[in-house]
């Protein structure tokens, strides 16, 4: 009976085939996408807030906020606020320290990365990789204290040697024999901080060197050095540049380690061995606690300049590294 009824019943229309996601999926996608856009939002907000707080300073100081070598403000007899705020000297210091850090860190890191990729026995390799990762997770204040109490005595001696033998080069000259707390020593501390970054990026790129090219070189009778020179270095050149720029990004914005080691003096100083200098980040924290409201705005503006600098450096670094890594695949 039921059978018959079923037969006479109409055949149900075929279910509509759709690629439209279900409601639960749409909610899921909405949540994940909106959080995914968070990084963009935060970066934009950082730029907006710092720029708007520093806007008053930018307007008043104009271009001399970037190029000015003075940082002073006071109230004159008539009760007007006189201000002359510029971060030029600190920008010079930032670049000087970062250059020292890069000059020391990049060769060492590249050698270390090459050693890890081509020379190290597996056990030493994994141990060293762990050590380098560990180094990357040390707090910056630890680097600062170490630099101040342990590295400084040795580095002061190295600085004196440099001055003695290379003092005729303007960069290594000093105004007065004051070798402690110099940009040179701060640069050395920063170098130890960026070595893990540069090493791990270069190592990653070197490890992607196509195996067939390496084997081809060996088959042609190359020894290890020839393989490195003719295959690995040309292949990894972009990776080294990109890794160094990532390191540079870190070095530009480092605050506490530089503040700890360096003798912060607001004056343009090109002499790396002379014990005075500063960078933008350490300038911000050293003036922070006593800052007036207007000065606080100026310091936030300085933060904005620093943010832009690191952003540009990091963007180009990522661009170069990504190109280097995808080339190998």
């Amino acid at each position, binding site marked *: 009976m039921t059978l018959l009824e079923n037969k006479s019943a109409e055949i149900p229309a075929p279910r509509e085939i759709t690629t439209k996601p279900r409601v639960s999926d749409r909610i899921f996608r909405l949540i994940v996408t909106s*959080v995914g856009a968070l990084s963009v939002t935060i970066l934009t907000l950082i730029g907006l807030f710092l720029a708007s707080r520093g806007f008053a300073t930018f307007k008043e100081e104009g271009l001399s906020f970037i190029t000015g070598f003075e940082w002073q403000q006071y109230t004159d007899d008539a009760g007007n606020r006189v201000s002359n705020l510029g971060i030029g000297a600190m920008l010079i210091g930032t670049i000087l320290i970062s250059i020292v850090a890069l000059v020391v860190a990049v060769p060492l890191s590249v050698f270390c990365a090459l050693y890890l990729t081509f020379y190290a026995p597996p056990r030493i390799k994994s141990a060293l990789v762990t050590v380098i990762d560990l180094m990357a997770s040390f707090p910056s204040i630890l680097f600062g204290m170490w630099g101040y109490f342990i590295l400084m005595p040795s580095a002061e001696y190295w600085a004196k040697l440099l001055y003695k033998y290379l003092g005729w080069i303007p960069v290594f000259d000093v105004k007065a024999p004051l070798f402690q707390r110099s940009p040179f020593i701060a640069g050395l501390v920063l170098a130890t901080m960026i070595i893990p970054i540069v090493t791990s990026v270069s190592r990653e790129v070197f490890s992607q060197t196509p195996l067939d090219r390496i084997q081809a070189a060996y088959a042609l009778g190359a020894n290890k050095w020839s393989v490195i020179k003719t295959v690995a270095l040309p292949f990894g050149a972009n990776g080294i540049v990109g890794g160094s720029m990532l390191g540079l990004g870190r070095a530009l914005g480092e605050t506490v380690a530089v503040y700890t080691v360096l003798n912060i003096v607001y004056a343009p100083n090109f002499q790396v061995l002379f014990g005075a200098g500063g960078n933008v980040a350490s300038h911000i924290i050293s003036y922070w606690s006593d800052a007036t409201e207007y000065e606080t705005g100026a310091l936030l503006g300085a933060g904005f300049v620093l943010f832009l600098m690191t952003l540009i450096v990091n963007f180009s670094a990522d661009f170069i590294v990504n190109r280097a890594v995808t080339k190998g695949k």
Partner: protein
Amino acid sequence: MPSKPWQRTPREILPSLAILFLSLILVIGVVEFTGMKGKLAYIGLFIPVGTAAQFFWSLYKYGMKAAKDVIASSIMMTGAIAVFLPVVSILLTTFIKGLPGISISLFTNDMGKASFTDPVGMGGLLHSLVGTLYLILISVLISVPMGLLTALYLTEIRGPGSRFIQFMVQAMSGVPSVVAGLFIFSAVILTTPLDTSGFVASLALSILMIPTVTRASQEVLLLIPNDLREAGLAMGATQWRTVAMIVVPAAKSGLITASILGVARIAGETAPLIFTLGGADKLNPNPVNGLQSALPFYIWTGFRLGTQESVQRSWSAILVLLVVVLTLFTLARVLGSNSKVAK
């Protein structure tokens, strides 16, 4: 016939070891009898002298090409040693300088009744330790979901913007910590009624932690085989259920590692705290109301005061902080290696 003909035989290794030994003796002699100063002089002199000796030996024995190879390998080795030395020095220093100040009272007292310049036995860092734990807890609560969801967007949804967002996440991981602190200061403390507190400081730390968590989780999620996702979808699961019940559980230990790496990134951050934390001498268990301290802040204060006692306090606090970081790092390593075995 040797089974591995490319390896150097003992007869080839022995002369070069002998040469290294001779140059070591030479270097020790030179350093002892001339006016050179410092322990690093031994290393600084031994490396070039040893390299040169090796160079001439292989030049004499095997020719120019092999000699260049020797120089290159010795330079690479020097690079590795030079990278390794500071780590050893940093670890040793921290333990040697920090241990004398470690006592039980350090962990049970705060600085409410003592000042930094008092003898080291008085007062302690309980308030900072608690503060740091709060900072870590709140930052984890904010950053882990955010970081994980961003990583899911990049690996599971792969929307049209994912390349761009990937780029932005990398740029965000390069934001200097001082800028993160300044941003939270201007966006929260200047704009909203909230004042400096543990919670506000955690917001600043989260900015630094989110990209770390995102990038580490993304790497783990990319390792999950696509077969698993396809199997889930073929069983009729929606994407949401595939992700929640298959992908994320499969990547669990790796995701925990990612969170730990994020915590290790922020545990010792000092610069953002200067703008956002305020700092306190007393234990304050409320992260939303009132001032709190944190280990990096404690170290910072002690260092800036610069007396013998306060610096000793800083070293002890650094040791505590380093132990925290090392523990986290080891945890991340162990869990990370487990997750690779499970694969």
